[in-house]
């Protein structure tokens, strides 16, 4: 059974101009000890779809669908109960390690607070556990680090500390939202290797949200490609990234600089820009930018259907070999 199964997730956010649909019917599953990657451009709904599960959306947002985590329904769960699940069995790491840590509290305070609250340990055992956690994410001199403050660490080290806090209660699922975007490539590689090791050693499932397909390609087992609040293609990483079937997936890959492309060939840019929520084109949201679009693409929203090993929302399927 899947650890997390999301079905028909639909999120509307309040805006001054009225509610706007940001996530429009999204389905996916996350298996235990697997890395599930979500890729998409800004405004594609990838982050909002996760915040919805944790009850972190702004007031007056509306959420429909279901999200079953270890057999329990997360959507509509009473706040108190949700707080017990999230933070303990389900935790999140954010993009910016400069703002996600409290600048006035020592690393030790931030780590042990979490452990004592959720696991009910006394101070001494909590500190012992905190040192283990810091060592686990490879912070040098973990005892000294407990007494240090966030500003004394580099961006990469802060992100490691944020991951240690997220792992404090041995969660089953870690949601990482662009965890390496603010970091240098050399540091990013270290964080990716850390996540890869943790999922093997701790049987941790990871949802990795990123705009960088290269990052997904490194450690994701399965991937979902988001466009304008919907999933356009999903399946095993190898299948989706090596032989993409949705024109958007193909275009996204062609737009990326590939470190092994033979010559100085220009990048194949996708014409136009991704639509903003509230102004999603009718039919397939990608049709104005798609060179394969036919009449039906302009009027009918293509459903995400199983095609062999993957799921695809493109009935035209022009890339099918």
């Amino acid at each position, binding site marked *: 059974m899947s650890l997390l199964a999301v079905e028909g997730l639909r999120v509307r956010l309040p805006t001054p101009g009225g509610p706007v649909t940001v996530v429009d019917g999204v389905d996916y599953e996350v298996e235990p000890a697997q890395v599930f990657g979500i890729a998409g*451009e*800004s405004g594609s709904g990838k982050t909002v779809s996760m915040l919805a599960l944790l009850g972190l959306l702004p007031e007056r947002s509306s959420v429909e669908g279901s999200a079953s985590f270890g057999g329990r329904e997360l959507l509509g769960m009473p706040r108190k109960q949700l707080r017990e699940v999230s933070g303990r069995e389900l935790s999140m790491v954010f993009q910016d390690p400069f703002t996600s840590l409290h600048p006035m509290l020592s690393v030790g305070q931030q780590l042990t607070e979490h452990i004592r609250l959720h696991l009910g340990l006394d101070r001494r055992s909590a500190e012992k556990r905190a040192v283990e956690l810091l060592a686990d994410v490879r912070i040098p001199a973990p005892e000294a680090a407990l007494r240090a403050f966030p500003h004394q660490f*580099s*961006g*990469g*080290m802060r992100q490691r500390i944020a991951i240690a806090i997220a792992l404090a209660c041995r969660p089953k699922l870690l949601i990482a939202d662009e965890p390496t975007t603010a970091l*240098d*490539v*050399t*540091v*990013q*590689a*270290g964080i*990716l*290797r850390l996540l*890869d090791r943790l999922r093997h050693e701790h049987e941790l499932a990871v949802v990795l949200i990123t*705009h*960088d*397909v*290269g*990052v*997904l*390609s*490194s*450690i994701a087992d399965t991937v979902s490609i988001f466009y304008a609040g919907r999933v356009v293609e999903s399946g095993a*990483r*190898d*299948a*989706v*990234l*090596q032989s993409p079937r949705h024109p958007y997936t193909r*275009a*996204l*890959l062609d*737009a*990326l*600089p*590939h*470190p*092994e*492309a033979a*010559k*100085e060939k*220009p*990048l*194949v*840019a*996708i014409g136009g*820009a*991704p639509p903003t929520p509230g102004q999603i084109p009718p039919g397939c949201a990608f049709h104005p930018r798609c060179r394969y679009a036919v009449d039906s693409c302009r009027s009918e929203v293509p459903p995400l259907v199983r095609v062999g090993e993957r799921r695809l929302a493109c009935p035209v399927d022009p890339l099918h070999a």
Partner: protein
Amino acid sequence: MSALELRDVVVDYERRGGGLVRAVAGASLDVDRGRVVGLVGESGCGKSTLARAAVGLVATTGGSVVFEGAPVSTLTRRARPRSLVRLQLVFQNPYSSLNPRRTIGSQIGDGVDASSRAARTARVKELCELVGLPAAAATRFPHEFSGGQRQRVAIARALAAKPSVIVLDEPLASLDASAQAQLANLLRALSRELGLGLLLISHDLAIVRHVADTVSVMYLGTMVETGPTLPLWTSPAHPYSEALIAAVPRPDGRGFLPESLPGEVPDPARPPSGCRFHPRCPYAFDRCRTEEPALVTLADGRAAACWLQAEGSPPAPPAERAANLSAKSTVE
């Protein structure tokens, strides 16, 4: 002679509470018209400071910055000299570099030297088309545009002054993949069509590889390697370049886990002895800890500052050369 020449540039910052920090410690760079030079390195290596020194936004402590034969003076309260108009800068963040209360057209028009209002309008329209913005964009405001389009506006504004060299500080960071690719292609085309020299500062090596003709790799205030882009990428001569390239993830769906480079860029106020990279270098040997290697010319337009490379010889793979060296020393 190159359009923009930086020779042994040194930039010191005063740190709060006293003490000097040498952000750039003797770096050289040439930008020719019609060529794109990529400047790469981790954050904290001094590349943005060097870019600012190149256009006169920060004062240099040593070395020289020469643009079209004349020294680049540091910006003061007085107007920037007329001759420097042809040296332009584009900033990283197009959300803060444009005035939100003025139309795109009037902001681009600031740099246009025109005799009449009609001529100015025509030139603004031409500039919009040049960077791929609709001509109607001129009457609209920055908030009506996406990040990628705003960066086009910033480039059009730089082009208005008919520059020969533009310095771009991380122009592609903070953009989505599709906007990034469009802009990368635009920069390359502009450089060719207008004979523009571009100094492209970026932490994203993969995009630099597509855009730049030559690459300079910077570490802790100095150049550690320079050379034509593709040869440098396929056979890096300096262990730092090698590490940067190995850390780039590949979007090919094959599960390639990029290599991490342990440690971080040290505090420039207290640089390591010898080669500045030695504490993080997997091949460091005794000499690296005591003597700083100079940037020496190798074959084929390449240059590297590493004791593993020999002056005048073709660049050797650092791992191979290091293995040979240690084999030799055990025999001795």
